[in-house]
C-alpha cells in the first residue's frame, strides 16, 4: 500500500504506469476484439487512417487491418521484452553477485566477463548469433537476454560490494551461514531496489533490440512484432508513410512508459530517498 501511494504521487511514474497499463490492456483484449489472424487480408489496400470506421488505423499495402496488427503486436512485443529482460536479470544478478561477493581471482574473472560483454556491440552480436543459430522466437529471446545482462550485472556487483562490508553480514558469516545463503538471503533483498529499476529499463532495451532485429527482416518470420511492421512499411514510405509510422508510435509509447516507470521505481524504491 505504501508503495502504491508513493507510486501514485510520482507524476512521471504514474504517467508511465498508466500508459503501460493501456498497452497491457491492448495485449489482453486482442484475442477478444480481433479473434481472427491479424495478418489476414480484410479489405482494400491502402485505406488511410481515420478515414474508414471499419479500419480506424487504415489498411496496409496488402489490405491488412493496421489496428488489428498493432493490438496483436502488443502482446508479442511485451512478452518478448519481459522474457528477454528476465533472462538478462537471471544472468546479470548471478554474475554480478559472484563478481561482487568474491574477491581474488573469481571476482576478477567474473568482472572481466562483464567487461567482455560490454565490449562487443550488441546488435553485431545479436545478428551474428541469429545468423548462426537461426531466427526462432525462443532463441531470439535468449540471445537478446544474453547480450543485455551487462548493466544489471555491473549494478548488482556494485551493490553487493557495498553491502558485504556491513557488520550484519559479518555476523551472518559468524553464525555459519553459507555464501549462497548470505548472497540470496541477506544481500540481494537489500540490493534489489535499484536492480528492479534497471531491469524495468532492460525490458525497454529488449523491446528496442527485438524491434531493430525484426525491422531488418531478421526476426522470427512466423511472428509479427511492431518492429517488423515498421520494416514492412518501409518500401511504401513515398506513397503511404503511415504504415511505418503507426507501429513506431506504438513502440515509442511502450518504451517511453517503461522508462518513466523505471525512473519512478528508482526514486520510490531507493531507501535513502524515502527516509
Amino acid at each position: 500500500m505504501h508503495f502504491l501511494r508513493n507510486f501514485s504521487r510520482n507524476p512521471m511514474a504514474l504517467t508511465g504506469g498508466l500508459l503501460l497499463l493501456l498497452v497491457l490492456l491492448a495485449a489482453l483484449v486482442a484475442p477478444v476484439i480481433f479473434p481472427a489472424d491479424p495478418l489476414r487480408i480484410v479489405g482494400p489496400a491502402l485505406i488511410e487512417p481515420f478515414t474508414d470506421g471499419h479500419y480506424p488505423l487504415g489498411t496496409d499495402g496488402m489490405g491488412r487491418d493496421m489496428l488489428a496488427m498493432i493490438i496483436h503486436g502488443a502482446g508479442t512485443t511485451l512478452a518478448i521484452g519481459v522474457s528477454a529482460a528476465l533472462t538478462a536479470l537471471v544472468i546479470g544478478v548471478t554474475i554480478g553477485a559472484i563478481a561482487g561477493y568474491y574477491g581474488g581471482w573469481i571476482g576478477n574473472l567474473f568482472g572481466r566477463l562483464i567487461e567482455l560483454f560490454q565490449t562487443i556491440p550488441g546488435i553485431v552480436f545479436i545478428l551474428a548469433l541469429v545468423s548462426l543459430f537461426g531466427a526462432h522466437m525462443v532463441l531470439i529471446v535468449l540471445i537478446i537476454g544474453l547480450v543485455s545482462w551487462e548493466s544489471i550485472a555491473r549494478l548488482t556487483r556494485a551493490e553487493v560490494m557495498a553491502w558485504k562490508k556491513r557488520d550484519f553480514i559479518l555476523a551472518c558469516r559468524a553464525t555459519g551461514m553459507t555464501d549462497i545463503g548470505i548472497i540470496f538471503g541477506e544481500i540481494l533483498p537489500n540490493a534489489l531496489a535499484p536492480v528492479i529499476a534497471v531491469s524495468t529499463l532492460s525490458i525497454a532495451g529488449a523491446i528496442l533490440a527485438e524491434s531493430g532485429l525484426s525491422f531488418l527482416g531478421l526476426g522470427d518470420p512466423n511472428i509479427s512484432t511492431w518492429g517488423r511492421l515498421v520494416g514492412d512499411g518501409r518500401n511504401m514510405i513515398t506513397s503511404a508513410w503511415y504504415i511505418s509510422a503507426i507501429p513506431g508510435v506504438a513502440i515509442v509509447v511502450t518504451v517511453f512508459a517503461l522508462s518513466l516507470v523505471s525512473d519512478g521505481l528508482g526514486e520510490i524504491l531507493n531507501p535513502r530517498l524515502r527516509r
Partner: protein
Amino acid sequence: MNSSRILPSPYTDPLRFAGAARKRASRPLILLRRLGKRLLTHVLPLMLTIIVGTFFLIHAAPGSFVEIMSSEMQLSDQAMIDRLNITYGLDQPLYVQLWKYLEAVCHLDFGFSYRQNIPVTEAILTHLPATLILMLSGLAVALLTGVLSGIAAASNHNGWLDRLLSMAGVFFFAAPIFWVGIMLVVLFAVKLDWLPIGGINTIGADDGAFGNLLDLGTHLLMPAVALGLHQSAIYMRVTRNAMIEAAQADYVRTAFAKGLSATAVTLRHIFRNALLPVITVLGLQFAAVLSGSVVIEAVFNWPGLGSLLYDSVVARDYPVVLGIIIFSSLLVIVVNLVIDLVYAWLDPRIVLE
C-alpha cells in the same frame, strides 16, 4: 588569529614545490605505465577471449562452415567439398584448427569472403571509413545537443525547462532509431524534398572537392541526426546530474565567495568538473553507437560496416560476420583505452592513486 603561519604554504615550503615539480615530470611516465598495464591486463585477455569465443561459436553452430558455404554457392560436387574441407583444415583436430585460426587472426587474416570474393580484411577496411564518418558525426550531434541541453536543464534544476528537457530525453531514448530515421526521410526527403533519401553521395556527380564534400554533408545529415538524437538523451542526463552534483562542491562555494559571476563559475568550475563523467560515458556508450550505426546504415543504404554485416548475415558469409565481431570489438577496446588515458590525463587525482 593568524593561522596561515602555522600551515605549510606552497610559497614558504620549498619541499612542496620540489614535490609538485617531480610529480609533474613523472606524469607521462605514469600514463605510459598505465597504458602498458591496461594493454597486458585488459586488451590482450579481452581480445584473446573474443577470438577464441568466436571460434567456438562457429563450431557450436549447426552445419559445418563448408556445408553452409557449399550450399550458398550451390556446390554439389563431393570431391570439391572434400577439397574445401582440407583447405579450411576441417579434417584436422579442433585444437589444431584453433591454433591456425589464432595465428591467422593475429596476422589480421580473417579468411576469404565467398560473397564479396575478396579477403575479409579488405572488405572490412573498404567499408570502415563510411562507418567511422557516420559514427563520429552522430557522436558530434549527440555530444553537442546532449551536453548543451544538460547544462540548460541543470541551470534550471527542477524548473519547467528541466522537466521539458528530461521528457524530451526520455522520448528520444524511447524512439527506435530506425523509426526516427524513416520519419526524417518521410519529412525531409519525401515531403519537403530538401535532402537525399539515402546513400553516401550522388551517383555520377563530381563537383570538385568542395562540391563533393557538400554532397557528402547533405547525405550525412539525416543519418547522423537520427543516430545522435538517441544518444544525446544519455549525454543530457549525465551532464545534468554531474552539473547538479558539481554545483554542490566546496570549490564552487569558494568560487562564488570570491565574487565570480554565475556564468564564470558555471563554465570554469562546474562544467569542467562535470565533463569527466561525460567522458566516462563516451567510452561506455561507444559500443552502443556502433550498434546504432549498424541499424542506421540499413535505413539509409549507407555503405559501411553495418551494410556489410547485414549482407553477410543474409548470405551466411560467416568469415565476414566473425571478422566484423572481432574488428568492432577491437575498435571499442581501443577507443576505451584512449578514453581511459585521456581521463587519467585530465583528472589529476588519478596520479595520486
